């Protein structure tokens, strides 16, 4: 008799816990709808100017890169927007000469976060270098910032740029953080 009662109470406890876990979320208020961001009107371009150079012919494979192709050189400049690569520079890079990514798709109204990766290599590795980042909307500058590389890590920086639904009048800057 005791053992039957023990099993009954055990089953009651387990059943109760399982029932609670299965139904506890039913009465919670529904999650608010995801914030929808609209595509910002205009033509966007990004310009990067570095104080270091790079040549694909002389670049050796980067042993610390996780690229799929072990023999492929690591690009000295990469830019991502919302996790999507919008620039991976694999051509010759000259110090002081701007590199341009035109017709950037996916810029939304509100805050846009660009991830900038610059990796000086070979003779330039480890030294401090500057990277100037400029974002243009319809060829008008929207943001202009300069960063410094840090030792062997180079530069890994995010630029957050607020984009208004409508372009501002000339002279009115939008916000970059």
């Amino acid at each position, binding site marked *: 008799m005791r053992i039957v*009662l023990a099993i009954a109470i055990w089953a009651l*406890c387990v059943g109760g*816990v399982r029932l609670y876990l299965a139904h506890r979320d039913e009465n919670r208020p529904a999650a608010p709808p995801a914030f929808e961001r609209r595509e910002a009107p205009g033509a966007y371009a990004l310009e990067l100017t570095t104080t270091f150079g790079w040549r694909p012919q002389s670049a050796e494979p980067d042993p*610390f890169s*996780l690229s799929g192709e072990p023999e492929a050189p690591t690009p000295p400049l990469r830019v991502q927007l919302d996790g999507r690569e919008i620039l991976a520079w694999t051509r010759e890079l000259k110090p002081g000469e701007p590199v341009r990514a035109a017709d950037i798709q996916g810029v939304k109204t509100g805050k846009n976060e660009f991830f900038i990766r610059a990796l000086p290599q070979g003779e330039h590795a480890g030294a401090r270098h500057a990277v100037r980042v400029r974002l243009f909307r319809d060829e008008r500058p929207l943001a202009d910032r300069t960063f410094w590389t840090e030792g*062997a890590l180079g530069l890994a920086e995010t630029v957050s740029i607020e984009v208004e639904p409508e372009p501002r009048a000339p002279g009115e800057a939008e916000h970059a953080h």
Partner: protein
Amino acid sequence: MWRNLPFLVLAACLALVPARAAEKKLIVCSTTQVADFTRQVVGDRARVACILAPGADPHLYEPKPGDAKLVQQCDLVIQNGLGLEGKNWMANLAQDAGKPVVAATAGVKPLVLDEHGATHDDPHAWFDPVNAAVYVKNILESVSKLDPDHAEEFAARAKLYLQHLRVLDAWIKEQFNAIPKEQRILVTSHDAFNYFCQAYGFRNQAPAGWTTEGEITPEQRQKVVASIASFGVKSIFVETSVNPKTIQDIARDAGVKVGGELYSDSMGPAGSAGEEYLGMMRENVLTILHALK
């Protein structure tokens, strides 16, 4: 009956828990370095067990019954390879248990050692961070195949760890720049530091050769004492996983000091600075720097 109620409730709660723990894969690694690299890649997504205890010697290790039991339960075995595991003990354990075994050194360009006419691949490849990156990539590939659902997460961890290795490599180069090239001579108990010496411009001397097996002959010892004198070496080093007596005797004969203890075939115990690869390398570099500068 009511006396038993708390136990029954506890049993009911416990019944709900173990399913979650059992989901984790078990990966068994041969050495502390390989286990550390694996933990850096899998995080808490898998259980990582290491056969060798910190300070144990992989060349001379004899597997114990508990090791075979552990390997029986695992999903993947990762070893160093290149002959580090003396008499192939890790691969044999895996084979006996019918478990897949991966060599973390696959793809490393091995240094070839010539000893008394016999050649061997040097297995101590992890001492060059560039090779450590190869270990990490091989481990990433094998654990991603084992658990494809979390492959993206493993890759993110590996990517971060490779950046740590990049910084470590640059930092070591910067530190050793303070030691004039002619003073960069590393005398250690056994030939574990060839990759390290090649990467950072050191010449090395090790009386015991590439493995810790066997005693050194008086001729070998005399040769090392003579070369210490001819190169003007300031300090020589003992290793954490090798008996320090030989090096201490050589230091006395050559009239130089013992510069400190280096982590070599095994990393340090839990709680020590050398319990992880990055700490082990950092401490070795600072010990060498302090003794030779």
